[in-house]
């Protein structure tokens, strides 16, 4: 009895979010369209409640539950809080957009909350099956979200591509897991880890499993050569969904990487380091160079994501506590920057107008200097210009890579960052020096205005005082991996 109680307490946030998602579906059946705002409030309330539960049940130690399939450690708590926060921001940014496009329905919020639950399970999974279940819960919700705008042919196409390729990647991941199961005889991450430490296994089988697992992870992150879906899905999805896919889900993908590579397969670090190096370098090159040729803002952000993933991998491939912590810092920074960038696209779009082309930003400074300034901070941060958050994020991962002795890789990354700065700064140029194409007044809701302002200013503030966030990441990683 006592065991069940601890199990339930450990998974209380997940249970709460899932119940609320179902409750929202039910409420949506009976609510008048005019009162739909209540659904939005309920969803926000859910995230707030989950945050409250996570905070109150937080302890600075690692607790296993459900026979070791589920874990509650500082890293999972911190990442979950980040997921709640960023999802809440996503919901604020997307409300106007989806209501103008007929997607302001209960399903949207229920799907987002189910996806959140999936991410939470990924973050807390300590077993191949738990992780896989969380991943699939998330993925299925995302496929549905992409296709939410049913009459939109491009969205449907994007959803189809995402689904087929995602299934392929899931298959690879599952295949890799089964290989490891064959080699070690366990599906539990801790047990796989200790089993690898103890004995000599069939090395080719291990490598085979590892490659498939890394491929699956790389697909989720969007690293080259598994990045093909990213631009098409980013561009084809409704911007509201792109925002969700591009930001929050990366936190869960990061957790998956840490659980599998840093906790389960740390003994094989030498091997996965090599794979990550190849993917990191390719991601930075392809991401940065292809981004230059884009005219669509969403596609540009897609390639920018790919290059950011490259930098993230620099932190992970350092294979040290410091490296993982800086990678966590990077992913959190990345999510905040992406939120601000896509938030601006959402803010500028109107009914029947998407604001997703570079030209749509022309002369933004003349139309609204404050928004131009916010976008300026965001672009500087993405490019890694000090003193923004993006600079410290790049600085941290590159420092970790330097400590791991990868000098030339770091030099290369810095050079590529310079190339990358081009397309971010081009946006600044377009905003400040070009004549606006359309001079209509930008209208938005008060809450969006404030949240977006805070979001962008946070990039500056955290860049000036990065220590608190850095300490949080170091705290989460150190306690969870020891």
């Amino acid at each position: 009895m006592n065991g069940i109680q601890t199990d339930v307490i450990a998974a209380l946030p997940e249970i709460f979010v899932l119940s609320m998602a179902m409750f929202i579906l039910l409420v949506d059946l009976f609510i008048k369209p005019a009162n739909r705002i209540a659904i939005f409030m309920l969803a926000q309330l859910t995230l707030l409640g989950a945050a409250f539960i996570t905070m109150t049940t937080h302890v600075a130690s690692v607790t296993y539950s459900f026979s070791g399939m589920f874990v509650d450690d500082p890293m999972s708590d911190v990442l979950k809080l980040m997921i709640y926060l960023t999802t809440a921001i996503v919901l604020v940014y997307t409300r106007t957009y989806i209501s103008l496009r007929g997607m302001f329905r209960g399903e949207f919020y229920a799907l987002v909350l189910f996806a959140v639950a999936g991410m939470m399970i990924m973050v807390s999974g300590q077993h191949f099956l738990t992780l896989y279940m969380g991943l699939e819960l998330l993925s299925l919700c995302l496929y549905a979200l992409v296709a939410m705008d049913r009459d939109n042919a491009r969205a449907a196409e994007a959803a189809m591509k995402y689904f087929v390729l995602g299934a392929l990647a899931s298959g690879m991941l599952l295949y890799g897991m089964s290989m490891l199961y064959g080699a070690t005889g366990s599906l539990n991450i801790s047990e796989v880890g200790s089993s690898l430490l103890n004995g000599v296994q069939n090395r080719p089988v291990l490598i085979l499993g590892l490659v498939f697992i890394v491929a699956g992870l790389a697909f989720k992150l969007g690293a080259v050569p598994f990045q093909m879906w990213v631009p098409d899905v980013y561009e084809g999805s409704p911007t509201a969904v792109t925002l969700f896919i591009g930001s929050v889900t990366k936190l869960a993908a990061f957790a998956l990487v840490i659980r599998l590579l840093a906790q389960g397969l740390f003994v094989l670090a030498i091997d996965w380091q090599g794979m990550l190096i190849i993917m990191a370098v390719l991601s930075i090159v392809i991401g940065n160079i292809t981004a230059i040729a884009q005219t669509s803002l969403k596609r540009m952000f897609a390639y920018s994501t790919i290059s950011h993933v490259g930098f993230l991998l620099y932190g992970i491939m350092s294979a040290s506590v410091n490296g993982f912590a800086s990678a966590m810092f990077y992913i959190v920074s990345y999510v905040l920057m992406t939120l601000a960038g896509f938030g601006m696209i959402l803010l500028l779009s109107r009914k029947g107008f998407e604001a997703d082309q570079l030209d749509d930003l022309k002369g933004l400074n003349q139309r609204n200097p404050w928004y131009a300034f916010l976008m300026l901070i965001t672009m500087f941060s993405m490019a890694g210009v000090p003193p923004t958050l993006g600079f410290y994020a790049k600085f941290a991962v590159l420092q970790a890579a330097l400590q791991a002795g990868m000098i030339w890789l770091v030099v290369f990354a810095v050079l590529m960052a310079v190339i990358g700065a081009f397309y971010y700064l081009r946006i600044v140029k377009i905003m400040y020096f070009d004549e606006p194409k359309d001079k209509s007044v930008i209208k938005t809701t008060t809450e969006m205005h404030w949240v977006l302002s805070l979001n962008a200013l946070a990039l500056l503030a955290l860049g000036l005082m990065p220590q608190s966030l850095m300490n949080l990441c170091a705290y989460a990683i150190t306690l969870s991996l020891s």
Partner: protein
Amino acid sequence: MNNISMQTIYLLIPLLPLIAAAIVGISGKVLPRSLAHVLTILGVGGAFGLSVLVFLDVMKGHIFNGTVYTWMTTGDYTFEVGFLVDQLTAMMMLVVTFVSLMVHIYTIGYMHDDPGYRRFFSYISLFTFSMLMLVMSNNFMQLFFGWEAVGLVSYLLIGFWFTRPTAIYANLKAFLVNRVGDFGFLLGIGMVLFFFGSLDYATVFQRAPELADIWVSVVPGTQWSVITMICILLFIGAMGKSAQVPLHVWLPDSMEGPTPISALIHAATMVTAGIFMVARMSPLFEISTTALSTVLVIGSITALFMGFLGIIQNDIKRVVAYSTLSQLGYMTVALGVSAYSVAIFHLMTHAFFKALLFLGAGSVIMGMHHDQDIRNMGGLRKYMKITWITSLIGSLALIGTPFLSGFYSKDSIIEAAKMSHIPGSGFAYFAVLAGVFVTAFYSFRMYFLVFHGKERWMEKKHDHHHAHDDHDHHHGLAPNEVPHEQSWVVTLPLVLLAIPSLAIGYFAIEPMLFGHFFDGVIFVNESVHPVMHELKEDFHGAQAMALHSLTSLPFILALSGVVLSWFFYMKRPDIPAYIKSKCSLIMYVLENKYGFDSFNEKIFAGGSRFIGSKLWKIGDVQLIDGLLVNGTANLIGRIAQRVRRLQSGLIYHYAFAMIIGVFLLLSLFLLLSLFMKV
């Protein structure tokens, strides 16, 4: 008072003006005009009040040196924001906040009709913050921050009337010339970090003697002392900021800015930052007599030759500007002869009387409806009584009239130069002595031309105006107008500044120069540079010093300067005109300011433009643009187009790419693992 509350006060002193500046600057036109000056004056007034508290606390012996905030740590280096509050800092804080407060009040009157009213207040409050950060810092990094921040505000204010081409030219010039100085300064700081491994003053000063005998070979075959290099590089920074020859060229042009900032920034505070910095670094400079000699010679050249230029100026503000240059030279001379406390003493007295002179000049300019040409003035004493009296006090203090503040500081500098024996001191003594006569002559030339004699503005002959101070005004008096005194916001600061100009020297000389005020702050190696010690032996009280001086050479020189200018410009105006016509060569040299400007214009600016255009055509357009930038960009662009084509949009291509990716990774790592086994 306990430590914690004192620390809060230290923090509040720079923050109050900063907050005021931020509120006024950001809210812009939303804020009512009256609130703009009320807020900033409250901020600066608060800072002044707290500085008085701090000064009293420091006088009780409470010195603070600590970190307020650690900005970042990289490897072995820590970059911090910290305060060092000792006697020198406390005194500078008093001077800065007091003069700034006076200027704030004065500005209400001076900028009354200007559309940039709020912007101006925001800038000067921001300046006060930056200057306070500069003087309060306990490390080189924060010093550099303050250094650049005051510079920034200074450029902004020189170009305050940014629609005027001359203002933009002047602000660009100030910016460029200061780059030269800052380049040296930054190199100096870099060397400090490299050789001492720390930017903290206390650590650096403590380790300085260890480096006395370290030599480096920068140019092969020569050995340079590290400390000398550091000191000279730091002093190059000071030359830029404190406008020493040959980096002085920006200061006269900076008069394009509104008069209140000429008083605050380009006379009383910012330009003395270099002097303050060298005094702060006395433990370093004391080690290197070579560096001190350099300082001394540069200072003497500035003191004398910039004074000459003051004689031929006709713009009231430019006369005062050249006088500032010359006085900065005096302070530098004092630094050069190891009389740091004398330099700081002169810095303080000069801040009061020079701010007074500038504000007085501003009052005259307002009275004359923005006509700045002293040839159009005359006889103003009848119409502007307070301005007249206070300007007279300021001029008397400047030329070193016994018992007035300027006398004590200036005479001490002359005495110190006389007693020094380091190389260059002979020239320095001559320069500062001759400078006394020159100073008296140009100061009273201006005084007589403005306040006495014929009322030349009645004649209304001059329809061309040499310089202007406000583009929105119709310049000069209307035919039937007479000059008028200003409201109390203008005259009150004049009166309040006149008081310390009169009296502060008398009271402060004994504690500051010969007492224990600067013990533990300024370091003098008395065995090598015994100047202060000898000065002390000759000193028998402030009163005795003043009485004794009545028979001394400087006094006679000053007196003859005054008499001669009276004779020339009041009695026989034909003589200067005659001299002018006869000595055309000297006039040519002086009018061209020794050719510094045309030299810079032709050689540096022209040369850079030439090199620039060549580099642009050959290097940039052909090599870099054609080959590297556009070449690379074209290449990358072409690659980008290629890679982009890979993104075919066809799902089986994507799936194929993934499978190929897995296949390649698999083969590579399986092969690798096989090899590793073997």
